């Protein structure tokens, strides 16, 4: 099992390294360099040249990649091209908002999804099951910017029950209730986005296990369907469910760009969008790497959990 874990971790590092090359290459492909973006219509050859000199854009790409990777490995993210502040400080200040939003959403979405999935499995093929299926499919089919704007239009603009944008003072200095009020609509929007995936995976995984012989045995013993599912089927369906939950948690951290923009939450997503606008490449790269590490990390955790939950993987022969 230890060898399995080490292999997983090494694989994670390789994946991170490959992604680092992709992130670097992708940011190189952004049209227009940072100097053109900053100087705009007023750019002259002279000011462009001095700007490129200052930002070391004149060196070849592979040299800059190796320098960047070296600094990254030592944890030095450098300074932002937009305002000369330390990127690590900026990310630190913004990360809390993103992580808090993700955590609160996960607290609501994960139990809700598993519960709905189990209900759908227990009542498979009934009208309740179909209702859950259709409902979650509808929510996964509409993009977040639509759900978000729709929620804002109904609950904030028309009914005036909720704030249309997250109030900055409430968000940073408010008590728990004020934070919840500021984040209610973003949490709802994100919940709708991640619910369907997890619900459907729970239902499918449980129903898959339901066709195995030992379940038949339990049914023949006279156990009720609910008991069969909770006690016998669910533990063996944990691996795929945890996997999909991990994927969705990673999405909650890295995929909040749209929701943060709609509700004006000063998190990593808005920082990334602004940095792209200003062609602040070091910040874009740093956040990109952070998202990548989050994904790899959650997947690693999911793998470990799956190994622990599965006796066959726990005790390999």
């Amino acid at each position, binding site marked *: 099992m230890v060898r399995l874990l080490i292999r997983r971790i090494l694989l994670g590092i390789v994946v991170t390294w490959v992604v680092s090359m992709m992130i670097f290459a992708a940011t190189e492909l952004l049209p227009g360099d940072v100097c053109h973006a900053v100087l705009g219509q007023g*750019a002259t050859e002279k000011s462009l040249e001095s700007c490129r000199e200052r930002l070391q854009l004149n060196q070849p790409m592979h040299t800059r990649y190796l320098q960047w990777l070296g600094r990254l490995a030592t944890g030095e993210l450098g300074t932002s091209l937009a*305002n000369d502040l330390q990127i690590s400080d900026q990310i630190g200040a913004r990360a809390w908002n993103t992580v808090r939003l993700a955590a609160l959403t996960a607290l609501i979405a994960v139990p809700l999804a598993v519960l709905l999935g189990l209900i759908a499995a227990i009542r498979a093929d009934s009208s309740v099951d179909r209702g859950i299926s259709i409902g979650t499919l509808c929510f996964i089919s509409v993009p977040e910017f639509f759900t978000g704007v729709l929620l804002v239009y109904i609950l904030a603009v028309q009914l005036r029950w909720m704030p249309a944008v997250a109030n900055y003072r409430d968000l940073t200095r408010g008590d728990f209730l004020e934070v919840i009020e500021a984040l209610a609509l973003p949490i709802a929007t994100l919940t709708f986005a991640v619910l369907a995936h997890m619900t459907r995976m729970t239902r499918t995984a449980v129903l898959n296990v339901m066709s195995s012989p030992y379940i038949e045995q339990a049914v023949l013993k006279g156990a009720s369907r609910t008991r069969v599912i909770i006690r016998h089927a669910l533990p063996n369906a944990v691996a795929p469910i945890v996997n999909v939950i991990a994927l969705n948690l990673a999405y909650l951290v890295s995929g909040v760009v749209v929701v943060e923009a709609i509700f004006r939450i000063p998190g990593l997503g808005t920082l990334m969008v602004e940095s792209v606008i200003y062609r602040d490449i070091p910040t874009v790269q740093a956040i990109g790497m952070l998202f990548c590490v989050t994904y790899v990390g959650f997947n690693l955790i999911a793998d470990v959990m799956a190994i622990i939950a599965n006796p066959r993987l726990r005790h390999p022969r």
Partner: protein
Amino acid sequence: MTKGTIYDLRDQLAVGQISRRQFLKRAGALGISAAATSTLLASAASSAATRKTGGTLRVCIASGGQTDSLDPTKFLSTGDYARGHSIYNPLVALNPSMQPIPALAESWESNSTADEWVFSLRKGVTFSNGKDFTSADVLYSLQRHLRPESESPGKPLLEQVTEMKADGAHVVRMKTASPNADLPILFTQPQFMISQEGEEEFVNPSGTGGFIMKEYEVGIYARVERNPNYWGDCYLDALEWITNVDGTARMNAMMAGEYDIATEVDRNLIDLVERAPGVEIVASASGRHTNLSMMCDREPTSNHDLRQALKYCIPREQIIQNAFKGYGMVGNDHQVSPTDPFYCDEIAQRTFDPDKARHHFKKSGVDGASITLYTSDMAVSGSEAIALIYAEGAKAAGIDLQVQVAPPGSYWSKVWMQVPVCVSGWDARPTADLMLTIANKSDGSWNETAWGSERFDQLLVAARGETDATKRKGMYCEMQQMLHDDGGVGMLGFYDMIDSRRDNVVGFDPHPAGYNRDAFFATDISFA
């Protein structure tokens, strides 16, 4: 007939010097949009409204982000300007008639050749940390722009000042390299706001403005509170500045009552905002414009008749109505806006005339299919739609030109000033001189049409140094006529700045200063 810019007339209307009918007639003659006219009428009425002291006003700023700064030499966005104007003051302010009025400088005068200036500073003004405001602060603030490492947008403007010295604690003397009657207006630019001598960090800067910075989160949020020792009028207790660059989210929150003022209403949301209860549109006619840039130094637009043809087939009214939703003014093929005191209304308005266009086009002998009009929303938001409307107009005159949408990232570097015809755009400049110089001076680096005239260059310099207002206006008229007759600019339209306020906000009025307009309001605003 009544004279002056529409903003002069608004003031005259407010004090009853002219009638509402005279006002509307002049607005019509200047081509001011119906929307902007009604905002002006409302502001003339509201200037008489009673003002309440106190309250916290929430302002949503549409631009800004990670490059925001409290250092005036680094001001780039309207957010910087607006926050800056609440905590600092400039030497000189610009009123809506585009005339300089006193701020930290109480008065100023020049010699007869307008190359030596004396600015007398306001006495008894203190910074928020209690220190007195003196000429040393002025010299320090201005000289920071001229440092070798400075990347200030104000640097090239200030370089004409060759000598700057204090004459006692409250007088500053300046010499300019060449005569410039507009020098005081230079100091209305937001970058030239006055900070305290010795201030370098700008983490918690002291200013002389109506408010003191209390909380500041770069690119997100700022809160300022009333400066109890402010030298002028100030109504509000506090202002909150919230940056929200997403147009839809901004207007949603405005309509839901989260903000009292939200700047920059996207044109495609205007209808929605106009209908929202409790929200008013504030439309400011200004010098911001979008134009055809036809390069006079290369085929085929070096042909005078072709340029005439391409100017005659601009469907001017249709562009204002469709692309600008009525919030704009037609232009007359030069860059001076009808809101500028030097706008020449003696030149006949060129209108959409397919017959004349066809006539000039035939005379030019150019093949229409060889002309490609490049465009991008990078130039001015809406430029791609405008190019299509224009192409239809050209078709009516028998000119079958191609429209090519160019990638936005490289528009200014690879298209503008490279191809013979493209859609361009300029933000408003504070003076006719700056606008005409930057875009038309034959050796200027942004002479986008490569049009050049010795007479024009001479007139530019002469008018800049002319202190007699009537003579000066005559010179600007001649320059506008030259551009109108021969230049490479086809004016597609001047467009209004469109902002929004709640109906209980007083003093957030139209101002023609284009992108700088958001800088003017902090101490003027109150609740009704």
